[in-house]
């Protein structure tokens, strides 16, 4: 924030130069080769590939499941962070450590574990299936896997903000006559909004790119449970590099636009919360 107004800290030019250079090498240049690859296609071919019914179905699933998973993570991540910050209970440290597990685990392991639990004969699946709820090998399984891998983001972004949020603010609201719901909606939620948005953006971005855990639980049925990253892999395996990169470009453009939108929203909400 300070840097944007006026550079008081030394080395701003150098730091910015390095950042751009670094981002170019790590992100921009590798990704731009994608666009070069697609350049071998004509517009017509490109359009045909990216609007193929199987591709469209995969976007729907990828975007939809990622969105739902990120939203679930916002709700339950907030809950977990709240419990971890506000209450003390035996084993709190362990629970706190568990939160990071989805980060540490190879995602394939997570995928296999979830599949085992949620398949028709699994621990949880056996109770859900008679109710007509199919998780493994269904779109719902994709949501479950993406929720699993995205959980830590919201918890870890919201936790420090909550730790700074003293009960005094809630007490002030209570003495002014607010009830619990009003306090949550008018005081707590707006304060947490920037952190929640950050967590949401990260969980969502992570979910869009996730591949390892989903392939196990989804069953990978074209038109039904096939996510875009998997479709890209399939095309690569068939040496259809141009087709794969065409889909990748779509994913990339959509992710970028969504993340940009979230960033703007965040910038707007953070500006109002300028630190005291």
């Amino acid at each position, binding site marked *: 924030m300070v840097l944007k107004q006026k550079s008081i800290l030394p080395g701003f030019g150098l730091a910015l130069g390095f950042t751009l250079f670094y981002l170019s090498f790590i992100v921009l240049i590798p990704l731009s080769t994608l666009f070069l690859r697609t350049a071998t296609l004509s517009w017509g071919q490109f359009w045909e590939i990216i609007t193929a019914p199987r591709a469209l179905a995969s976007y729907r699933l990828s975007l939809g499941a990622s969105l739902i998973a990120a939203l679930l993570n916002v709700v339950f991540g907030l809950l977990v962070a709240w419990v971890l910050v506000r209450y003390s209970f035996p084993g709190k440290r362990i629970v706190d450590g568990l939160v990071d597990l989805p980060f540490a685990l190879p995602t394939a392991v997570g995928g296999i574990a979830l599949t085992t639990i949620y398949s028709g004969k699994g621990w949880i699946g056996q109770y859900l299936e008679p109710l007509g709820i199919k998780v493994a090998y269904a779109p719902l399984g994709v949501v479950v896997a993406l929720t699993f891998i995205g959980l830590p983001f919201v918890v870890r972004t919201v936790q420090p903000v909550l730790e700074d949020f003293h009960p005094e603010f809630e007490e002030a609201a209570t003495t*002014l006559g*607010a009830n619990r719901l009003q306090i949550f909606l008018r005081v707590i939620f707006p304060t947490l*909004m920037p952190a929640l948005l950050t967590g949401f953006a990260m969980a969502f971005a992570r979910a869009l790119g996730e591949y390892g855990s989903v392939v196990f639980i989804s069953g990978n049925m074209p038109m039904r449970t096939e996510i875009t990253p998997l479709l890209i892999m399939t095309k690569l395996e068939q040496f259809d590099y141009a087709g794969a990169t065409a889909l990748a470009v779509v994913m990339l453009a959509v992710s970028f636009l969504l993340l940009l939108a979230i960033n703007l929203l965040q910038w707007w909400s953070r500006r109002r919360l300028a630190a005291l």
Partner: protein
Amino acid sequence: MSIEIRRVTKQFGDFAALKNIDLTVNTGELVALLGPSGSGKTTLLRIMAGLETPDSGEILFHGENATDRSVRDRHVGFVFQHYALFKHMTVFENVAFGLRVRPRSNRPSNEEIRAKVHSLLQLVQLDRMESNYPSQLSGGQRQRVALARALAVEPKMLLLDEPFGALDAKIRQELRLWLRRLHDELHITSVFVTHDQEEALEVADRIVVMNEGRIEQVGTPEEVYDHPVNPFVYHFLGNVNLFHSRVGEGRVKIGPLEIDAPEHAAAQDTPAVAYVRPHDIEIERHKNGQPAIAALIQHIQSVGPVVRLQLNRQDTGQMIEAELSKERYRELGLKAGEVVFIKPRHWTVYQGEGI
């Protein structure tokens, strides 16, 4: 509205924060809870607000038992030590908060809210700041927003926790006089917490002196300052000189002096301490034929209307602090390094070794 506290106790774990507190705050009064840090002032204030529940005892509002009344139903205005302004709301929205959260049936219209908030912001002299965020205000301004916010809900009493604690000296001074004027205007029953005796003496109608979870004395500023009931109150309400001695048959010997202590007529050669405020030390150049204590002037601080002297008792080497008016100081023509004769003008004698 009057507040009555009856035999209230509060434990935090093994620690007794409040021990059997009895206190009545009369309607329209401005009362100060004064005491050192950790003496239970905040806890008592929070119990009045309902933010903390007492382990035993009762709280009566206007004669009615309110011990189990919820915070929302108590209609108290509470101003927190660190203001607790909502950072994501403008000054206007902060003040309007209490009106906006009212149940729909008695929520004022937007125009009414606007009018009310504007009049409150005028009252606290912040009408030009309404669209600023708390982060853009100074400490004193935040404090006044917090006060306006508390007043917006028309509370039956106002509770303020160290309202000027976090401000610098000059603003503190201004704000406390302003608070006094505001109170005289609104006449709302108010209790404020402070650890600054000057603040309490200057602003409050009555002072409640607290120490280690107990009330030591309740009285007007004059009462607690001039007639402290025990050494603690004496110490806490200003600078004081201690003369260690013994009391017997209602008289105390301090060096060559003998002073009266009729309230200790029954004592027989018991250890005692005479407490004398710096401005109650009389200074003379000559003995004038009467017994007096010889003391060496070590340091003179003569800035302002009151001159402060650091003296050294010649017989015991004890340091004595004395205050006198500038006029008297000029009249005597005192200089550091001179020997003068001192004796107490007013004193209070307590048995024991003092604190």
